[in-house]
């Protein structure tokens, strides 16, 4: 390949860089707004790294340096070392299990010098690389069950270890890789099954078991009645229908209650029940309620930058990290929130566009991975702040305060940009 090296930035996808910068800057401004107290000496805070926004600024600087290094790296490096990086990531996760530090009840932090670092953020990247490597390998036939199981294992092994670190929220994100697998040929019916599963769990929690059982029975009877001709032709159909019926009933009556009493932790059950409006535990509703008041009080146009009253007086907990969307919702209102979400959607669509223009399967899978990870974070995080999802501690990509998270997402995106710039090469 003879690439004319005329310009250093040759082949870079500027729309994505622009959207990336926009989100990071909105993030910095929001963290600043969440902390700003009127009489602060801003320059002094920035120099002394005494505030979250000043530390985030420093992490942004580090991210830029890392992004530049990635840009100057040969893209073959990423394909060649994908499995190695994955193994390293798993090792790091296991290391945290051993010598990690407890922060706010989760055992998922490493302390290096004065900085805390959460390896679970980095392993998303490792997993994405490994999955891309596996799916693009010539030996892999993704129509075979075996390959699908291996791909699922690549995605779920880190999730398992992260659950052991009591960071269930971060583990959930690994399910986003199923979206990638769907794109690569996982049957669409699996998406339908996953969706039905969620509906089943929710109905099991919200509706009385006996009523559900009756509803299932009625539906089954109707289905059998309407497909009686097909059943006559093919007896096994009846077995399939009855099998689904039996499974749904068992799932609702036994498996869900069992999971809730034995598998999930007390506080997780409480958060889910609060979200569903079942329990009114003040301790569990506090965060969601304050966050909804802050966002709701923003109104149509918002109160204006730095004019929010809810986020300013520490009524919303964790405002700089998981609840950063409150600041945007309060200061910029409905209009601002929609525009903000639009920036994300633009980024996601652009990433999908980039993915689809690849000749290399590796890059396509990787780029879809980037889109899926960002999408899951975005959907869960915002849903949580407006009371649509239980409080799950995952950050808003590129916006929430947190060095490991910002750095991890920067690396995720810039590796994709590097791969995309070399899309004329066939990478494996």
């Amino acid at each position, binding site marked *: 390949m003879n690439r004319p090296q005329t310009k250093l930035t040759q082949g870079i996808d500027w729309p994505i860089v622009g959207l990336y910068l926009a989100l990071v800057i909105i993030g910095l401004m929001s963290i600043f707004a969440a902390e700003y107290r009127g009489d602060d000496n801003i320059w002094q805070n920035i120099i002394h790294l005494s505030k979250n926004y000043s530390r985030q600024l420093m992490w942004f600087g580090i991210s830029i340096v890392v992004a530049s290094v990635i840009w100057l790296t040969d893209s073959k490096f990423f394909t060649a070392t994908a499995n190695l990086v994955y193994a390293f990531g798993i090792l790091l996760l296991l290391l945290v299990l051993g010598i990690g530090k407890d922060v706010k009840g989760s055992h998922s932090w490493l302390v290096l010098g004065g900085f805390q670092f959460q390896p679970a953020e980095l392993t998303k990247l490792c997993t994405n690389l490994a999955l891309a490597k596996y799916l693009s390998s010539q030996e892999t036939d993704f129509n075979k069950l075996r390959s699908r199981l291996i791909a699922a294992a690549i995605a779920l092994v880190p999730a398992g270890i992260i659950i052991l670190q009591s960071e269930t929220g971060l583990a959930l994100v690994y399910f986003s890789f199923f979206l990638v697998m769907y794109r690569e040929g996982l049957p669409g019916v699996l998406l339908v099954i996953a969706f039905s599963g969620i509906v089943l769990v929710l109905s099991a929690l919200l509706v009385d078991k006996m009523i559900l059982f009756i509803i299932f029975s009625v539906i089954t009877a109707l289905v059998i009645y309407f497909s009686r001709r097909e059943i006559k032709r093919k007896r096994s159909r009846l077995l399939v229908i009855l099998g689904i019926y039996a499974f749904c009933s068992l799932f609702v009556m036994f498996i869900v209650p069992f999971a809730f009493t034995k598998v999930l932790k007390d506080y997780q059950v409480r958060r889910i029940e609060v979200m569903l409006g079942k329990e009114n535990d003040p301790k569990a509703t506090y965060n969601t*309620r304050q966050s909804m008041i802050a966002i709701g009080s923003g109104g149509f146009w918002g109160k204006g930058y730095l004019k929010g009253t809810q986020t300013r007086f520490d009524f919303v907990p964790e405002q700089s990290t998981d609840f950063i969307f409150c600041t945007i*919702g309060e200061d910029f209102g409905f209009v601002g929130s929609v525009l903000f979400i639009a920036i994300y959607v633009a980024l996601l669509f652009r990433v999908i566009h980039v993915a689809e223009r690849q000749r290399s399967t590796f890059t396509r899978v990787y780029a879809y991975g980037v889109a899926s990870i960002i999408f899951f974070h975005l959907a869960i995080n915002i849903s949580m702040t407006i009371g649509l999802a239980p409080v799950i501690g995952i950050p808003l990509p590129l916006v929430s305060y947190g060095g490991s998270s910002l750095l991890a997402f920067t690396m995720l995106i810039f590796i994709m940009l590097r791969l995309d710039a070399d899309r004329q090469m066939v990478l494996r």
Partner: protein
Amino acid sequence: MSVFNQPRRRVIQLIILGMMSIIIVRLFFLQVVEKKYAKLADANAVLRKVVYPSRGIIYDRKGRAILSNDVLYDLVVTPRSVKNIDTAYLCTILKIDKEEFKKKIADCIKKNGPVRQSVFQSLLPAEIYGQLQESMYLFQPGFELIPRQIRSYPYGAGANILGYIAEISPAMLKDSNYVSYNSGDYLGFTGLEKTYESVLMGQRGIQYLVKDNLNRPQGPYENGEFDSAAVAGKNLRLTLDIELQAFGEKLMHGKIGSIVAIDPSDGGILAMVSGPSFDPNLLTGSFRSANFNRLYQDTTLPLFNRAIQAQYPPGSTFKPMIALVGLDEGVITPSTGYPCTGAYYGCGRPIKCEHHDAGHASNLRNALSHSCNSYFSHTYRLSVDAAKWGGIRVGGMQKWADYMNNFGFGHKIGVDIPSERPGRIPDKKYYDAKYKGSWNSCTNVFLGIGQGEVETTPLQMANAMCIVSNRGSFFIPHFVKSIDNDDTHLLDKYKERHVVAHISDTAYSAVIHGMQDVIESGTGRVAQIDGITMGGKTGTAENYAIVDGKRTKMPNHAQFVAFAPAENPKIAICVIVERSGFGARYAAPIASLMIEKYLRDSISSNPRRQGLLKTVLETVTIPEAMRAKSKLDSLNSTVIKKRP
């Protein structure tokens, strides 16, 4: 199904758009349709009141509240509303002059502005509050009394165990472990208040009240739909017996040292005294910081919890453990004797023994009850030099250190109050580094009699007594028996029985018999209680201090460890009285009185026991020079006077 005929890329894009539409619809309802939220945030229409939860109460083993909440009042002022009041009269009540009044108002305006409330005087003393309350109508609406909770310790005992709360410091506010706190919040700084902060603190609530045009609260907004109730902190129930604790503090008056008493059957701590003690009420209310400085600077170091932080050479109280190791390794049997004639000569330079009559160490039981130094020096050397470990420098020393670590020495045991110290058990590495490989069992033969490099805390010694009396097992010593409505796992580690190196039952029997003889006919006879069988061991730890740059011999630390009743132990105890000489003199009587108090609820009227009690109470062992400069007694008495 047509959707699956679309390219998969479109399906994924549709999923993204679908999810975002749901979010946007929800946002539309939240921000545009629903007006309640906008009004909530409007400070002119709705008053937001932070409701502070009451902190959890701590009860002792008999259900008596030993740390609860009192209400005190802050006088707050809204400077702009101060009009036409009798300033002179207010100044008289508050005992300030007019100049100071003006200065305080000016300070408040500087801090919070003229229209917002500021604290004029915090935590008013009871008599000022009483007078103010009667005539408050004269000073309203500018001035107001706001209730505030402070911690109170009804028994005035257990200061170092219970700990205290104080305002969060600026440094802590920056620490990610304290993100849920705001400046001005109080939190536990020491003791149980710190360890169990997460359960004691509760959760603050918010109340929204509708205001009228004159800014007066008119009632809940939207029927309280948006209020979050404050959740009170959870109560702790301790294994501590507050009466025993207070009794122990009385016994340690005028002495430096400590008492640790544990229930061997579950590891629950019954009393933990660090003498001299102070009244924990000194660290509450408006005098907290002044009192803290006085206590901090006091020559007797009352804030230093000697029971878990002071490390002493255990002296002869170590001998039961030396015997157990010897028995387990098979280097001695219960009938092994040693021909001691008043000193141990095995290492050249003789190690003196208190006894020289023939046969005082004719077997293990006798050797223990007479605390024969020769016998245990000999046993120690046999254990570490045992051929099966290849000698002391190969495996013997390390094996011995492992035994001691198993007995709970040389590391923090994990009691549920902070700042525990580990003590010290020297191992092979330590001696290799110190003597560059040229050392043998004579170099550290003093370990056999609890001297030399070994150091233990009183808590560790009391725990060792639990192990001996339980015949080889213990629970990690702890204070909290249960937490009301517990959903944490904080107490799990205290429910598990730990088995120590599988030493045989006969070895324990031999040691326990020897320790019973200590009380019945040996060095600890003074501790005898009629009708209670007891095992014990006296000890005297040599005490050196650096005086004018020279290592100088100081009066010895008296130690005593015991457990009772011997056949079914309910209490294991360690008492240390610094600089008071031989162990039987003060430490054994104190332990004996504590045991009687716990098992029988009171000290018998028998003249021998009453005499013992009187002697202990009257004894002062704090050195004159230290006592002359200590202000502790006068500090304590100020609180005692104040309490109703």
